[in-house]
Each structure stands twice: as C-alpha cells, then as structure tokens.
C-alpha cells in the first residue's frame, strides 16, 4: 500500500488545526485535561494527610486516579474520530477532499494520525499534571505501573480511534455515528473497569496483558480501516440504498440459497474448522493445568455440576435437555461470533476440552475419556464444524474490502451456519441420545 508520509502529515495537520481552531472545544479539552488531574491529585494528597498516611490502599487509589485522569481525555478522541469523516460529509467538504490526488490510505491515515496526536498529547499532558500534583514529597512513585498505564493508554486510544474512524467512514450522519459508537464505548468501558479492578486488587502488572490485547485490536482495526476505506463507497452511499429492508431480506435469502452445504462446506471452511478442532486439545490442556490453580471452593461445585448433568434419571428427557442445550450453544456462538470476532467459535470446542481436562486432572484421563465416549465421537466433530463456521463469521467481521460488500459477506457467513444447522441439528440430537443412553 503506497503511502506518502508528507501527504499523510498534510491531512493530519489540517485536521489538527481545524480541531484546535475551535477555541471553545480546545479550551474545554485542555481545561478538563488540566483541571481534573489537579483535582484528583489534591484528593489523593488529602487522603494521605487525613486518611492515615500513605497506606497500601491509598497507593492503589492513586494509581486508579492516574487511570481515570488519563482516560478522560482519551474519551474526547472518540468524539473527534467520529466526526472525522461523517462531519466532513455533513459539511459537504468530503467530496472536495476526495476529488484530490490524495490516496485513500493517505486520507485515512492522516485523519487517524490527527485524532491520535490530539488524544495522546491530552492524555500524557493530563498524566504529567496529575503526577506533578500527586506524588512530589510522598516518597512513592509507581514508575513501573505508570509506564504500563502509558503504554496501555496508547494502545487503547489507538484502538478507539481506529474503530471510531471506521464508524465515521461508514455512517451517513453524525447521529448514526454516535449511536454506532456504542459498539466502541461499551466494550471499552468493560475493559476499563476490569483494569481499574486489577489495580485495586494489586495486580497492576496485568495491565501489560491488556496493552497487548489492545495493540492487537488496534492493529486489526487500523488494517480494517485502511483496507476498507474507499472514496467510491463514501460517495455512493450518498445516493444509494433505496428500499433497504427489502434489499436486506433478499440478500439474506440469496445468501442462504447460495451457501455451500455438506462436503462442499467442509472443504470451503476446512481452515477455520481445523482451528476450532485444535482448540479442543488446547482447552483440555488448559483445563488440566487449571485444576491445580482453581481453589477447591470453586472446583468442587463445578465437578459436581458436570457429574450430575451427565447422570440424569430419565434418559429421554435428558436427551431432549442435552439437545436443547447443545443447539442453543451453537446458535449463541453463531449469533455472538460477529461481536466477539469469532472467539465464541473457539469456545465451542475449547470449553468442553477444558472440562474434560479438568475432570482428567481430578480423576484420570482414562476415566474422563470413558465418561464422554461414545457421544463425543459425534459431538466434538459437530462442535468443530459449528465452531469453524462461527470463526469464519468473526473473520468476515474484521475483513473489509475497498469494493465494500461487508454486510453481504457477513450475511453469507451467517447463512452458512444457519444452513449447516439443517443437517447439524439431527447430528446434535444423535449425540444427545448417545450421551443420555450410553454416556
């Protein structure tokens, strides 16, 4: 992908100046980025003075404070990123920008760089102010955790900005972009709460794991944006899209009709199916290893639950229950695959594998395997096929092309799983009967 760095910087510089040129917005952002850290910093110092000194709890709260003051400016980046394309579209400046010899990648990268630059300057500015107010004279400076916080902030902001720019490029109005931003805000707020919780329980070093996960997420989103950004799609949408509901229903019907089935499907999706299958032994190993780590208070009810589920009093109703459960699991995995980027596909095989491994650790591999046979001979391939199709759905979600067609490809992937259920469901029933009567 050709990218002229000077042109990227040209686009970024203009966008940066545009944001900074709005004095009310600039003042609000800079003011909050400075005032909030000062307030939080003084609150921490007050805790030290009036709350019994620099206790372990105060130390942890001081890190959560840093976390808070860094995230606040990061949230502005979301607003700026959402505005990047859809704002230009609403102000009718987009066509002019797109009519220049700038390449798609240069426009996209310039817009991302501008928002990222503003957000990171504010984030690190706020962190600097916070540190300057909070820590001097305390005899405590958590450098390691602050560095991990800084790195994880860069990755989080990059992921948020990249995601928001994709939303902006795909929305027709700012209102629609704001609604679609929930898909970024909600997962990010969960991540932040977990991170804050980890800091409070004294496991701040795990922030590095989040930083790595966010870096992967940012990379995927940036790649999606660069690959999927197309001036053709941006301009076409302005006039396209008549009778969308009927079009969507027709697309679903066509996707279902054209989806491969049986051996053709297995051949076409061999890669994801095999990777789903590979998650089963991996899950078994993890389950086996986890047996030694899980506290007995958690492990005993889990094992008891699994054993009682496998020993029903009435085989017919048990078979029906198992069938309903397994079918629901497959449908749920497919439905959630789009929002979990295919993770649920791996879980379909990894979780049974983990339970098997755990039981093996609690008893023996021989006993555990005997317990799941012969139903597993049917159930595991079914889980691998359904899991593979769910992984394919996830892969479709993160794959964008310049020519567009993201919705059509996603519908086609979902249709493959739906069509496969027509012959997977009887097999699930067979597995359930085997488990209920022979398991």
């Amino acid at each position: 992908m050709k990218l002229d760095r000077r042109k990227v910087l040209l686009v970024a510089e203009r966008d940066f100046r545009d944001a900074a040129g709005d004095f009310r917005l600039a003042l609000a952002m800079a003011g909050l980025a400075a005032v909030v850290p000062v307030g939080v910093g003084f609150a921490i110092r007050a805790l030290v003075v009036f709350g019994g000194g620099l206790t372990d709890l105060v130390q942890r709260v001081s890190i959560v404070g840093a976390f808070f003051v860094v995230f606040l400016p990061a949230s502005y980046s979301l607003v700026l990123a959402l505005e990047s394309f859809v704002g230009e579209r609403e102000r009718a400046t987009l066509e002019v920008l797109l009519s220049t010899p700038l390449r798609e990648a240069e426009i996209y990268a310039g817009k991302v760089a501008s928002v990222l630059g503003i957000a990171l300057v504010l984030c690190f500015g706020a962190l600097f102010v916070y540190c300057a107010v909070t820590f001097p004279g305390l005899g405590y400076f958590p450098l390691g955790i602050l560095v991990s916080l800084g790195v994880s902030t860069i990755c989080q902001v990059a992921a948020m900005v990249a995601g928001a720019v994709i939303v902006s490029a795909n929305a027709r109005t700012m209102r629609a972009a704001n609604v679609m931003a929930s898909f970024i805000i909600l997962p990010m707020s969960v991540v932040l709460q977990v991170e804050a919780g980890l800091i409070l329980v004294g496991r701040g070093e795990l922030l590095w794991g989040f930083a790595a996960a966010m870096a992967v997420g940012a990379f995927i989103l940036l790649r999606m944006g660069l690959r999927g950004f197309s001036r053709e799609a941006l301009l076409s949408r302005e006039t396209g899209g008549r009778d969308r509901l009927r079009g969507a229903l027709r697309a679903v019907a066509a996707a279902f009709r054209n989806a491969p089935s049986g051996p053709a499907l297995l051949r076409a999706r061999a890669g994801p199916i095999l990777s789903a299958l590979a998650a089963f032994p991996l899950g078994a190993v993890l389950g086996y290893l986890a047996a030694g780590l899980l506290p007995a208070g958690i492990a005993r009810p889990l094992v008891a639950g699994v054993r009682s589920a496998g020993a029903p009093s009435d085989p017919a109703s048990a078979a029906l229950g198992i069938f309903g459960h397994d079918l629901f699991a497959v449908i749920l995995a497919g439905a959630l695959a789009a929002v979990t980027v295919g993770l649920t596909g791996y879980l379909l095989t990894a979780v049974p594998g983990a339970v098997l491994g755990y039981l093996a650790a609690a008893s023996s591999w021989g006993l555990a395997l005997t317990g799941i046979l012969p139903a597993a001979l049917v159930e595991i391939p079914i889980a691998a096929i359904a899991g593979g199709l769910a992984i394919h759905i996830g892969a479709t979600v993160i794959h964008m092309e310049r020519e567009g067609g993201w919705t059509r490809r996603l519908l086609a992937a979902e249709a493959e799983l739906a069509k496969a259920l027509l012959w997977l469901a009887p097999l699930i029933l067979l597995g359930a009967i085997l488990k209920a009567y022979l398991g």
Partner: protein
Amino acid sequence: MLEVLQVAKRYGEVWAVREITVRVAAATCLVLLGQNGAGKTTALRCMAGLLEPTSGRVRVGGVDSREDPDAVRAQVGLVPEVPGLYERMSARSYLDYFGRVYGLDRPTRDRRIGELLDLFGLSAAADRWLGTYSKGMRQKVALIRATMHRPRLVLADEPTSALDPDSARVAWSYLEGLRREGSALVVCTHDMEEADALAGEIGIMAGGLLLAAGDRERLIRAAGLKKHRQVIERPTLEEVYLAIIGKRTESEARPA
C-alpha cells in the same frame, strides 16, 4: 483529453448514468444540460475519477480511471455544486492547503493564489475565515481551488449558480481563459445563455441518458425543429433543449 466510453453507473438498483459516450478535446468545452436528477453530477464524478463506472471506461489525458485513478484526479479540477469549504480556515490558508495537496511549490502557490484572489475580488477578505463568506464568495473560492493547479480537465457543476451577474461574467470569462490556454472544460449548468456562449458542444441528459450531444446545428436536427418549423431565425438553445426533453417525455408517456 477526455474520453467517456459507454459509461454506466448504478447505485444499488438505480441506474444514475446509462451508457453515455462523449469525447472532449483539449481547449474545447462541453456543456451538459439536464433537469435535476438527470445524472449530470454522477457523470462528472465518474469523469473526475471519484466514482468507478459500473461499466464502460473513462480516460483523462490517455490515463484510464480504473487503472490509475490517482493520476486521473491529479489532472482534474472539480468544482462541485456545493463549494464545501473548511469554515475555520481563511481563504488564503485554504487555497494554500489545496495547493500543497496538488504538489505546487511555495512560490507558485503564492503567485497563483494572489493572482486569482485579485481576479475574483477576494484579496481584501483573503485572511478572513471562510465561514464568514457569502454564498457567492464561497463559490469563487471553490472555483479558484479547483483550477489553481491549472488542471488539464476542469469539471464544473453549476459553477455560477450563486453568483451575481457581474461575478458570473468574471467566472465565465476565467473559465473561457482556461479553455483558451488548453484545458478541456465540462460544465453542468442551467444557464442557457452562458451555455450557448461558452459551449463548443452541448450534451442534453435526462434519466441518466445522454439524449443528444453535438454542436448547435446537430442538436437542432436532433430536436427535429427544422422539420416542423419553417423559421428564419435560429431556434434558441432553450427551445432546442425543451424540444429534446419534450420528445423523450412524449416517448415515455406513449403506451407500449
């Protein structure tokens, strides 16, 4: 300079442009006339390398827009119907930005921006934010922006719709100057008088179709005016246009 060969463009199920073919040589002008929704803007976007035709080919200066759209856009200056200016930039910095985008060096940018702001009477307001400009001033800035790099092909969508008669005269005279210097022009307008004065060739579009294209005599023949009227004076362009559009409306209304 510009070759549009059997170009069609479809948005979903709607054909905005249906297999139009036009050729515009260097230093000539094609004026596109047509009602709103006739497909003129989509046709211009295809010519500008902004949209890829669903079928057919667009070549600008021998470069195919499918093979190298960036090179096509570098040769084109597009004046959209809505000026689309960055409101928190001054006219000077706005034009300087686009001059940099088009790869003009600093002395050239400064000279061209100064000349054109003078020509359009905007020098005194050059350092004011564009958000404070009137509609006509904005349209002038858009025209300067699109042509400051001396494009080989100028595509203008209603370039004088918001201008007062005096400013419109300056704008048309400027476009005519560009044409004389060798640029090919494609202009969409509803101003028949100006179209008549400017155009070497005129194309009439309706429903995505190019109903007729050619010089005035050819259009008169296409309209069938010579057959029906024994007139001494030439029919006006407006009469020709209405006759051609009217013929199409009649043929659409006729039961199959």
